[in-house]
């Protein structure tokens, strides 16, 4: 067997094992069931509202279902992503499985890459399940298949992958999943508040004090370096997309590239931490 197939074989073995292991986690199954109940329940929620009817009333119902489902996918999706990214490495350290794996002819970067790919398989599987049920719910409620929502789910996934990359990096330094889980939530919340840093930068300097200007420059620097997860929030544009919408065509590939670069950075940090870890 040549080197390249062996490399991919090991990678696949680790990622498929991670996937199988992850899908057995009760907390993930709990989140998944909650999200599915929310999505399914959204169709019932509108039935109890007094907005039901025709015309604009019926369209309000459809909007409520869409928004509840997209929000449920985002919230439960990111919780699943954070919990799984935070736990795959520390739990193997905890139960000492990692020693058995690394005693095989597997390089540490191979192990990390395999684990990360396994996490992505779990996230993708969960997103597919939630998205699929969303489509079914919307089809039964409104008789429509919202294909544009595929783009919002795709962008949601790339938002998750950024959170996943950095949470994974933190998890490589931790011995239990608690700290990386908190860090993951922090990354997600901070990533959504990055926009405020730019606002601080644009408003800084109004007092003429040097301290004010320095704060502005620091805010600008942080705004440049930190991932801005609000960029992935193109739900409004996509859900209300008109034909011939050129900005969306160019934004989507740029956002994917943006996410992938942060993932590379996150994985690099993870390897930098993990390579010297005493195991």
């Amino acid at each position: 067997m040549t080197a390249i197939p062996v490399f991919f074989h090991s990678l696949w073995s680790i990622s498929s094992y991670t996937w199988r292991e992850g899908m057995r986690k009760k907390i993930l199954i709990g989140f998944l069931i909650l999200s599915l109940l929310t999505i399914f329940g959204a169709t019932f929620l509108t039935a109890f509202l007094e907005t039901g009817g025709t015309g604009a009333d019926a369209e309000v119902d459809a909007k409520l279902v869409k928004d509840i489902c997209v929000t449920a996918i985002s919230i439960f999706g990111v919780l699943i992503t954070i919990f799984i990214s935070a736990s795959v490495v520390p739990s193997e350290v905890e139960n000492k499985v990692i020693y058995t794996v690394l005693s095989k002819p597997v390089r540490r970067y191979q192990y990390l890459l395999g684990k990360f790919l396994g996490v992505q398989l779990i996230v993708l599987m969960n997103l597919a399940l939630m998205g699929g049920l969303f489509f079914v719910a919307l089809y039964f409620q409104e008789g429509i298949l919202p294909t544009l929502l595929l783009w919002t789910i795709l962008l949601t996934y790339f938002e998750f992958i950024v959170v996943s990359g950095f949470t994974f990096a933190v998890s490589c330094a931790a011995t239990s999943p608690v700290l990386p889980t908190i860090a993951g939530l922090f990354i997600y919340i901070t990533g959504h508040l990055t926009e405020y840093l730019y606002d601080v930068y644009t408003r800084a300097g109004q007092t003429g004090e040097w301290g004010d200007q320095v704060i502005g420059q620091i805010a600008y620097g942080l705004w440049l370096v930190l991932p801005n997860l609000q960029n992935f929030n193109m739900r409004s544009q996509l859900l209300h997309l008109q034909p011939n919408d050129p900005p969306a065509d160019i934004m989507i590939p740029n956002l994917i590239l943006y996410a992938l670069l942060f993932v590379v950075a996150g994985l690099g940090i993870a390897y930098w931490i993990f390579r010297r870890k005493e195991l």
Partner: protein
Amino acid sequence: MKAPKLIIAIILALVLASWQGARVSELRESETFYRWVVAAANQLRVFGTLEPGQAAREATAPDYMDESLFTDVEAHFEPRLNVEPGGEDADEESYSALIRAVQQGGHEHEIWRLASSAESRDLRQRFHELRREGRLASLGEVFEVGDLYANEGTLVNLGNMFLGFRQMAANLIWLEVDKYWHQGIMHRMIPLMYTTVTLDPNFVDAFLLGGWHMAYNITAPMADTPPALMEYDERYDAWVGEKERFYYRAADFLKDGIRKNPTDYRLYFDLGFSIYMEKIDDPTSAVRYLSEAVRYPHESWVRRTYYRALQDDGQYERSLQGWESYLEEFPDNQVAPRFIAINEGLIAERDGEAAYAAAREAEAEGDDERAAELRAEAEAHFDEARAVWENILLYYDDGYARTRVLRLDALELAEAGQYYEAVALLENARWESSDFFQEASEMIIEIKLEGGLPLSLSERQYLLRQQEGEQRRRANEADGA
């Protein structure tokens, strides 16, 4: 990989990600600018202005810069856009290339390329500075991060709490609106409706239902304002009472929706039909907005309503042409033949009245031969119109056609100098059809004035109000100039 190389690789990845982040931010800013350019071009064509007039501005309103910025954008885009000249619209020739490009459609990529180009960077920067300063009225009521620093924090806290889930916040507030509506607590609905659309400017149904609540449900229990108690409102250039203020408020609410969702036909339709046609009785404005509604993908009733508005506005030929094309497309439609006949009758009536007026002028000039010719022509037109109305009455029990026949009789009586008989006929006829009431009332005043008959108190008040309104309008125009 050795540690220094790995650190360099990580730093390189972070630098590249930051650079890409800056590029994405620039694209997002270009996108906001592009959407404003398209929306402003549309607004300038539809509303005729980007900024509220002096009368409509609040005391604390900033010095708006929309039109100055848009003029610069037009000048920058003009030589770079490849747009066909002219079009259906008579005003189209006076439009800039940018407005024509947005109106004609299909130029979206060209406009986006220009809006996001390096050459437009200065314009983009100026746009974002003005946006942050709140000096662009054409953006409508918007939620901005900068509002965090404002004193009125209610909306901001809501937006902040939901971490990008503002649509959900808007939905939850809308559910409250719905609850208050069913509880009959109307006064609580209005601020919440504004909050909903501020949080989610693309919530078109909230604009539609909000406009409907204001113009119909909130005003339903209100008594009609007696004409003598109406006040002249400079913002709307109209006489208004409490009810009418809500109609105009609903119109403003829908216009705000159009600013944020310029390609949704439902907003134009509701503004044109539900507000201007049904409530404010302004067919010219109704035509303006309904003609926009039919430009975008729409339901079939939108076209029918547009043709009816054209008829109400006296544009009978365009209405007739529209109904004929509609009938060709939908041969089984039941109402199109009736409206085709109505428009034919109205065209004949209008031509007959014009011939009568010309005959009177010819008589005044002493050209009796020409006057006789014109009278014969007028009578021929009236006969044609009468035949149309009577033909309609053969097939339908049609109040409108019946009143048109009575109207023709009244005109002929007035022409023969039998003013009392003409007025008496119209006094009865105006109760036959609600569509005819206003027209008949105005005809009665005209005939009384022509015949030197005394006006009633309400008729004198009506005339005085018209004159005062006209004077105020002229004064406003003089102030504006």
